[in-house]
Structures are given as structure tokens and as C-alpha cells.
């Protein structure tokens, strides 16, 4: 896939630029599209409730851009589908954190506790890594970005995990000892980021696969309109709204496209090697 022949025109001819997102209801998207409109760029957001669809849709030319994933996810997609979607700009890193209603600190989490984690592939692996970092469990071979719950070494682990839909991790707090909750849902669920028992470090190199990116079809990295949109995201108004939506945990970043591509290539290489 990935050939741009079927691509919709990019803005000038009056056709809107279609951006696939997950969570178009967030306030910052409205600010973003308003800003774009001021610059004469007609943006149409296509909202998906499922991560699986926006990449194929982009690849098939039904979208011009998408912005919902981090590099890790993109790499997994590209490898699985032999695709070459390309990151054209970064947005932010969202730390993944552990929350609990029952326990005040990491140390309080008892032996045999049940932890809810997101069940989508990349967040799941990332959550397992976070838990491993927190010393709650041990993964076979140290774990990586494709680890599964079945990779947990039960004898060496303090807790068990239950994968649930990402948004359900917050709901599940009533039923489990603790949950790994995606940033998106933290604020909505009425949680305070500072209450997190543990979270991964956005500035560590280990977090680099989790840089969220704008993605386009290969060959369209240099589209100026696209570049302008990437920039618009980092205007103060948008960043502020976006930060608010993440409960202030978002760590904005604007790595250049080629650096992102480099990281992507590296991850894809690893994945392919494992495949």
C-alpha cells in the first residue's frame, strides 16, 4: 500500500484535508481546526473509536493524515501490513501511569493483587513494562514492546494482570487493586495525575517509541500544508488545551521527521527480527 495515487487533493482545490483521529471530541481539536481554518486550511476530522482503522484508511488514501498513535504502534502496523506509513511530526509523549483507589502507594500493593491494563497491543506491552519497572512483575527475557500477559513469569511476580479496553481501566478501579490508565482517560475519569502510584519517564530514551506522531503516506512528508498543520499543533493555544486534556501530564515534543523515521526504522527492525 502507501502509494499516493489515490490520495485526495491536499487542500487547495477546496477538498478538505482529512485527518483520522481517535478522540475528536477533545477540545483542542476544535481549537486546532479553527486555527487551521484561519490560515485557509480546511481540515476535516474523521473520528475513529478503534485504533485499528485509521492506518489502513490512510494507506488506502481515504485519509490524508492521521494523528492518534505513537511510533511503537505505527511500527507494529507497518511491519504487520508491510506498509510504509511515515511520521511527519511529533506531538507529545504521554506517560503511562498506575492508579489505585484502594492503595496509597506502590508498596501497599499486596502480593497477588490484580492490575487492570489496556488490552490494545502496544499499550498492553508498555503497561507490562511499566509494571516490571515498578517491580511488580517479571517478564520473560526482560520483556519488550511486544510482550503479552502470557510472558509474565508468575513465580517471580507479585501481581496478576487483567487486560481490558483502554477506557475500562479507569472504570475497573472499583474492582481491582490498581489500573494502568492511559493518559487520555485520566482527566475524564476524574483522577489527578499526581495521584499516580507510578509512571514511566517521558524523558528517558526508553520512552522514545512512545512519541506520538502525525503520520502521512510515504512520499508526502514534505507537503507544506501538512507541515503547517504539524506546526499549528504546537501553538500555545492548542498545546494548552491538549495539556489540559491530559491532566497536565503531556510532555510536548517536536522531533523532526527524519529523527522520528530513524526511531521508527529501528523499532521496525527489531519487530521484523522477532517476527
Amino acid at each position: 500500500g502507501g502509494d499516493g495515487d489515490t490520495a485526495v487533493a491536499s487542500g487547495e482545490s477546496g477538498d478538505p484535508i482529512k485527518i483520522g483521529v481517535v478522540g475528536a471530541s477533545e477540545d483542542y481539536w476544535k481549537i486546532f481546526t479553527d486555527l487551521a481554518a484561519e490560515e485557509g486550511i480546511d481540515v476535516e476530522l474523521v473520528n475513529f473509536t478503534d485504533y485499528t482503522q485509521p492506518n489502513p484508511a490512510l494507506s488506502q488514501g481515504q485519509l490524508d493524515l492521521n494523528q492518534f498513535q505513537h511510533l511503537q504502534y505505527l511500527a507494529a502496523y507497518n511491519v504487520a501490513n508491510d506498509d510504509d506509513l511515515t511520521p511527519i511530526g511529533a506531538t507529545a509523549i504521554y506517560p503511562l501511569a498506575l492508579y489505585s483507589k484502594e492503595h496509597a502507594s506502590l508498596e501497599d500493593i499486596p502480593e497477588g493483587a490484580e492490575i487492570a491494563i489496556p488490552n490494545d497491543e502496544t499499550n498492553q506491552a508498555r503497561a507490562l513494562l511499566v509494571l516490571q519497572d515498578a517491580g511488580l512483575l517479571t517478564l520473560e527475557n526482560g520483556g519488550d514492546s511486544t510482550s503479552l500477559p502470557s510472558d509474565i513469569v508468575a513465580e517471580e511476580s507479585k501481581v496478576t494482570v487483567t487486560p481490558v479496553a483502554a477506557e475500562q481501566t479507569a472504570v475497573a478501579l472499583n474492582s481491582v487493586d490498581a489500573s494502568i490508565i492511559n493518559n487520555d482517560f485520566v482527566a475524564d475519569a476524574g483522577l489527578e495525575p499526581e495521584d499516580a502510584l507510578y509512571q514511566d519517564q517521558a524523558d528517558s530514551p526508553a520512552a522514545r517509541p512512545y512519541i506520538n506522531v502525525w503520520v502521512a503516506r510515504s512520499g508526502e512528508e514534505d507537503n507544506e500544508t501538512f507541515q503547517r498543520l504539524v506546526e499549528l499543533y504546537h501553538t500555545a493555544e492548542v498545546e494548552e488545551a491538549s495539556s489540559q486534556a491530559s491532566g497536565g501530564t503531556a510532555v510536548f515534543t517536536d522531533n523532526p521527521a527524519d529523527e522520528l523515521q530513524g526511531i521508527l526504522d529501528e523499532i521496525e527492525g527489531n519487530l521484523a527480527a522477532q517476527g
Partner: protein
Amino acid sequence: MNRDWSTLGPILLESVRETLYMVSITIGVGGFLGLVFGVLLYATRKGNLLQNAVVFTVLNVAVNIVRPIPFIIFITAVGPLTLATIGTTIGNNAVIFAMSIMAAFVTARIVEQNLVATDPGVIEAARAMGASRLRIIVTVLIPEALAPLILGYTFLLIGIIDMSALAGYVGGGGLGNFAIVYGYQRFNWEVTFVTVLVIIAIVQLAQLLGNWFARKALHR
């Protein structure tokens, strides 16, 4: 962070429109195809009007292949077909396409079920008059089973509304999606509640009509 209704109101309204659009086209297309499939499923059974083991087996298996596929997987699976037909695999029309196919197979079973209990004597009477099989199906079989069929289609309608909630998976809209995206995923229970209420109101209305028509059709 919770938008107020002045922002959400128009989106909600638009969602209502979208749902009605999706559901009516789906029930039209899927419902009609389902009627055809369902009648065939019934009529090609052994001992029935169009007895035909091959057609029955093929249909029976086909329906059972399509129906249990989880809908999000199904949407993706029919993607190439959707693309060829609708020109896109995302958005409401793509959802309608997938929903119509799924609805056709679901309806087939509902229709089949409702025809099974038809009095064979009445069909015989029509055969004895020299009515063609197609005519018998249209003017006897279906009218005789109309009351349960109407309830079946009411049931289907609700199933489709339910199914349309998944439209968001492929970038579609509608009430279900609105409730999930603006309400449920954002833990905004007020929005969820109001939206669900709207859905329920629509369903309730449909059911009222369905019950009323079914009662009319029963002629007892």
C-alpha cells in the same frame, strides 16, 4: 472540560439524523435482502414450497458464516467489497454497507423462524388454486406470518440501532457513537444518559408502532 449542551446539542441532533439515515437504509436494504434469504431458507427446506437441498444448505451455511463474525472484524473483512461498491471503507456509508449485509443475514434467520409455524393447509389451498410459488410466497406466506414478522422487524430495527453504535470504529457517526465517544469514553455520564435516552425514545416509538401494526395484522 465537559462541553455544555450548546456545543453538544447540534452534534447530538446531527447524530440523530445520522442514526436515522443509517438505520433506515440498513433496514430497507438489509431487511429486504433478509426477507428474500429468510423466505428462501424456509421455502427450500425439505417438504416446503421450493424444496431444494442445495440452495438450503448453501444459504444455511452462508448465514452461519457471516453472522458470528464479530462486527468490527466483519467491517474490515468486507472492506475490499465496500471499497469497490461505495468507494470508501470509512464513514457512515461504509458502515451502512457492512450493516446491510450483516442485517440481511440476521433478518434471514428472524424471517425463517417466523415462517416455520405457518399453517401448511393455507399454502396448500393456494397451490390448489394454481397460484405460482412466487405468488404464494408474496400473497399468502408472508401475509399469513405478518404479525410475527412485524415484531421480528421491530426487533431487527433495534438490533440495527445497536449495531450502528459501532459505526465509530470506521469513522462513522450516529447516536451510539456519540454516546460512546462523547459520553462513555469521557466518563461524561450526563451525555451518555441523555443520548441513551434519545436512543430509547426512538426505539420505544418504533416498538409502539410495531406492536400496533402486529396487532392489526393478527386479525383475531
